[in-house]
C-alpha cells in the first residue's frame, strides 16, 4: 500500500484529493490501481510507450524512481509517492 501525493495541477483529475492510497508491490502496480480510480491521470503521467512521461517526476520515499527501477521500483507498506510536475509560477 502506498500513499500518492497528487500535485495541485493534477488534482482536478482526482476529485481534488491531495492524498490517494493504492495497493501494490511496485510503483507500476500501485499506479494501475490509481488509474483505475482516476482514469484521466494515466494520459497525463504515462507515455504511449508505457513509461513515465519526461515532465513528470515521481519520487518513492524521496528518491526519484528514474534513479531506482522506474515503474518496477518496489514499494514498502506505507511508502509515500510524490508526483512532481514542473511549476512555472514566480513573479507575475
Amino acid at each position, binding site marked *: 500500500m502506498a500513499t500518492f501525493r497528487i500535485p495541485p495541477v493534477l488534482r482536478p483529475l482526482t476529485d481534488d484529493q491531495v492524498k490517494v492510497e493504492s495497493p501494490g508491490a511496485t510503483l507500476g502496480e500501485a499506479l494501475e490501481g490509481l488509474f483505475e480510480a482516476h482514469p484521466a491521470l494515466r494520459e497525463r503521467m504515462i507515455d504511449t510507450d508505457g513509461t513515465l512521461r*519526461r*515532465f513528470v517526476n515521481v519520487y518513492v520515499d*524521496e528518491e526519484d524512481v528514474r534513479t531506482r527501477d522506474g515503474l518496477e521500483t518496489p514499494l514498502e507498506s506505507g511508502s509515500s509517492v510524490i508526483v512532481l*510536475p514542473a*511549476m512555472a*509560477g*514566480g513573479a507575475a
Partner: protein
Amino acid sequence: MIRGIMPVMDDSIEVDIAGALARRDQGAAWVDVREPDEWQVAHIDGTELIPLAGAVEGIVARWPDPAAPINVSCASGVRSMRTVEALRAAGYTDVVNVGGGIKAWIAEGRPVLRGSGLTAQQDERYSRHVAIPEVGVDGQRRLLGARVLLLGAGGLGSPAALYLAAAGVGTIGLVDDDVVERSNLQRQLLHTEDRIGVAKVDSAEVALRGINPDVRVEAFRTRLTADNAWEVLGAGWDVIVDGTDNLPTRYLVNDVAVHLGIPVVHGSIYRFEGQVTVFEPFAGPCYRCLYPEPPPPELAPSCAEGGVLGVLPGIVGSLQATEAIKLVLGIGETLAGRLLMYDALAATVDTLRLRRDPACPACGDGHEVGGERPELIDYEAFCAMPARA
C-alpha cells in the same frame, strides 16, 4: 590649538590631511600611533596601527629603509609628532606628521572605519550578522562585495530582494519588464499603491534604497531572452535567484547559467505550494536534469491563471534569499541536490533527492563550465510544443 603647544618645528615634517592623502597616493605608508581601543572606535581606511609605546621600533622593523615615505597620525597630532621627531633623529628623512590627526580628518567630514573594517553605521546596521560566528565581520564584508542577480521583481523577487538588501548584499541586479499593477500588491511587498504604473525595477530600487543605502541596484528593465541572456547573466554575478513566471525563461536561464558556472537558486509557487532548490552547475543537478522536457502549457499554469496565496511567495522567496546568502558566504548545506516542497495548507515540508543526469543535454558528461557557448534554442517554441509522444 595643538600647534600652539608644539615646539617650533620645521614645516616640512608636518602635512595637513590633503597633503597626507597626496603622499599616500604616491606610495607613502600611513601609521596610526594611537591605542587599540581608540582605533576600534574610528580609524582611517588604509592606516596601520602601531601604538605609541612601540611605534618607533615597530616602524623601523616594518620599514627598515630610512628613506621610506611614511605618514604618522594620532588623535590630534601630538603623539605622532613625538614619533616623527624620534624617527627623524634616527635618520629617517621622509617621515611626516599628519597635523590635527583623525580629529582633523573627521572635522573635514571624511569617512572612518571601525576596528571591523566596516563604517560605524555598518557596524551598527550589521551587528546581528557580525555576532553570528558563521558570518562575522569577514562574512559581512563578503556580502557587501557580492553581486546577486534577481530574475523577476515580483512575488518571489520581492522578499528575496528586500532581505538581500537588508543583509547588505552590495550589488543587487533586477531583471523585469513589467510595471506595478494593483493585483501585484496582494503579495509583492517591493511595490506600493502609489507606485502603480511605475516600472517594477524602478519601484524596487526605491524600496531597496529606503532599506539600505549600502546597496547598489543594477536595473535591467527588459524581458530575458536568448538575445540578451549572455549579456545580462554574464555581468559577473555570484548567484542568480530565479523567480521568473514562465518555463521558457527557466530553461534559458539554466542553459546560460550552467555554461557560466553560476549557481541558480530556483523557486516556484502555485496556489498553496512552493518548491525551492539550488542548481549548482556540475556540483549538483541542473533544471534540465530535473525536467528534461517541459510539460504541455495546460499542465503548467501560471499564478495569473491558477492563483497563489499571497504569503506563499514570501516564504519561498525568503528561503531563496537564505540559500543565496549561504552560497555567497560558503556556509552550511545548500539545497543543491535537494528539492524542498512546502505545502502551506497541510503545513508540511518534504525534501526530495535530486540527482545529476549523466545524459543531461546541459550539464551531462562531456559538458563543462566555459568553452564554446552553447547555441540557445527558441525556448518559447520548445515549451509550447507537445511533449514527445
